[in-house]
């Protein structure tokens, strides 16, 4: 399940957001793109998800060019910066959403949701309204929801923003553990290098739409 991003460029009007961005994520590994606010990190994720159309370049997932595929057919999961949990659905229904969209059998949905809620440590919260969740719990639900349909690649847009230091560090460890345990191919964007170091296997820098060489590889 490798992701190859080849020569992607994107601009808003005259302003270049990304210039000839190229990246390859090996199967089952997590790669981080680190950069300051406005460097084009989120734009990169939105292009991979099919929420924005790049001016040039291709995205190849698992050998298939998905550059022109609509978002819902890309098999790309995404954890948004502010979670974007559906306020009218409870925790369980949020996690089950993607599976229901794929018309998966109810029994399998129940098993998969149970498995994921276990994984993120929220089994007891299944029937809870998402409005009552703490910041950390909401992040875990967002992660479980994105993982539930077993996407071929998971995109993480500053997934730990807004948490206090202790919770942030704990969730970063948990996230690394979960991604590793599920062998998920993932792309993390963040402005925090220490966060990237904990979660990812490789780190790239992005400054004003320009890519700097890969700076660190674990394992």
């Amino acid at each position, binding site marked *: 399940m490798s992701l190859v991003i080849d020569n992607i460029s994107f601009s808003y009007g005259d302003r270049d957001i990304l210039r000839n961005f190229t990246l390859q994520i090996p199967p089952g590994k997590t790669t981080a793109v680190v950069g300051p606010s406005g460097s084009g990190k989120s734009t990169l994720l*939105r292009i991979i*998800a*099919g*929420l924005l159309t790049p001016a040039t370049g291709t995205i190849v997932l698992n050998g298939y060019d998905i550059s022109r595929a*609509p*978002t*819902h*057919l*890309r*098999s*790309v*999961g*995404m954890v*948004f910066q*502010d979670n*974007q949990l*559906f*306020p*009218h659905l409870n925790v369980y229904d949020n996690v089950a*959403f*993607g599976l*229901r*969209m*794929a018309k998966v059998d109810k029994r399998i949905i129940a098993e998969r949701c149970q498995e994921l809620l276990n994984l993120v440590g929220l089994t007891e919260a299944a029937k809870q309204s998402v409005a009552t969740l703490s910041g950390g719990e909401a992040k875990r639900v967002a992660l479980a*929801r*994105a993982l539930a*349909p077993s996407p071929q690649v998971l*995109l993480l847009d500053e997934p730990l923003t807004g948490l206090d230091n202790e919770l942030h560090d704990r969730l970063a460890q948990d996230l690394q553990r979960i991604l590793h345990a599920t062998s998920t191919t993932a792309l993390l964007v963040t402005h925090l290098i220490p966060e990237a170091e904990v979660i990812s296997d490789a780190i790239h820098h992005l400054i004003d739409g320009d890519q700097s060489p890969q700076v660190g590889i674990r394992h």
Partner: protein
Amino acid sequence: MVSHSSSVIVRHVRLLATPATILVLVAAVIPLVVLSTTVVRSADIISIWQNPAVQKALVFSLWQALLSTIFTILVGLIATWYLTRYQFRGRQALITLITVSFVLPTVTVGAAFIAVLPSWLHHSTFAIVLAHLFFNISIVVRTVGPRWNSMSDQLIDSARTLGATPLQTWRHVIMPLGKSAIYSSAALTFFMCFTSYGIVTILGGPGLATLDIEIYRRAVQLGDLSGATVLAVAQMLFITIASLIWSRSRSVELMTFRVAAVSQHKPAVVPKLFIGALTIFFLAPLLALSIASIRTGQNWSFSGWKVLLGIQNQRGLQVDIWQALLTSGKYALIASCIALPTGVAATYAFSKNGSTNGRWSSLAILPLSISPVVVGLAILVTYDFAPFEFRSSWFLIPIVHAAIAMPFVVRATLPVVQGIPPDLRSAAATLGASPWRRFCFIEIPLLRPAITTGIAFSMAISLGEFGATSFLTRRESQTLPIVIADLFGKAGVIPRASGMAASLLLVIVTGIIVLSVDRKPHV
């Protein structure tokens, strides 16, 4: 943080509802109670329902209201989506056009559709449904719009990344998030169409009548006050009970008039076509009205305008348009002067502790669905006994207009009052502002846009009110809508052209008032 109890507004919160309560008691509740207890013959309570005309009116009221509601919700939801999510040239103008259409006098909307539709469609259910769509689409846009506008793009994106198709996103995310607003707007649209009077009077012709028209016919033309009252009370009870059942099972969404617009997307081909068609739908009746005002039969002529403005004499057609304009203006001014302070005070009573009390919210929706015809009839019967012989007094008309307009003031100001963070008042208090000064220097400035909207809408509603006024008006105190209805009731091409001209005049006056006071209505 300063507690609410220290605020001058909240300390006397219950007392603030007093003026509104008195207004509603005087203009609606007392007359309705008196009406139902004085003139009704017990035999009529059952026998009136066996009358074929009544049965026909009841069935027609229900089914045209149902059809109009379905149609309005369908078109309204698509319009709301495009207006809240897309940025396009003329978007603000279209929103303004839709807003103005809601406060246009019903008789002029009827006249405009007579002008735009071919004659074989004039007295048809189709014409009525179309006019109801024109009139009520604003309810959907302004109730559901703020809901959808506050929904982040990323919420829809997250559904898409979870594999939802556009249709699934609509079904599982967009519709459920607007659900309570959609239900509320459907309920209000249904009640407005069920009690439709002005539009059906003009577009229904002699064959199609709602219960409201039947009430008027019985009371005024047949002199059957008892039968008319039975129908009026039954209609009132039906609407009240239906509203209460509806609001008990659901949260009531208020129609708001001011919410910041946030839309960045450029529309694709289908949205563009829909927006174009919607613009034509709203402009065509008004253009047709202008053209019809200068057509007498097959000829182009300004005779309609000349007769209307008193420049040309026409036998059997005496119109004092200037007097009618003056009377309408006077009533509109008085009505808004009553409705505004009463409505703002009621708003503070409703928004106790910063959240709207459910029961109060449903009460706020109720006066909008009480038939003005019923109110007019009830007042006529009630204030006919000494020492309350006010039935021929002119001041009853603006009081009734104020009672009808007051819910709009509440609806315009309530979201703003609720949106004022308590800490803002606390901050002012820590800076030494007394409760009264906090009200004057913090709350009033924040409320100003909503207050101007409230004034504009009160005036527009008073200018266009037809149902209640048609009962209470006297020859010397005729308002513009009454003059229009009179003109359309006369045979001949010149009265028709004059009626169209008077309708256009009323549209222009209403439009000027709404646009000059409320320059930028947002969705």
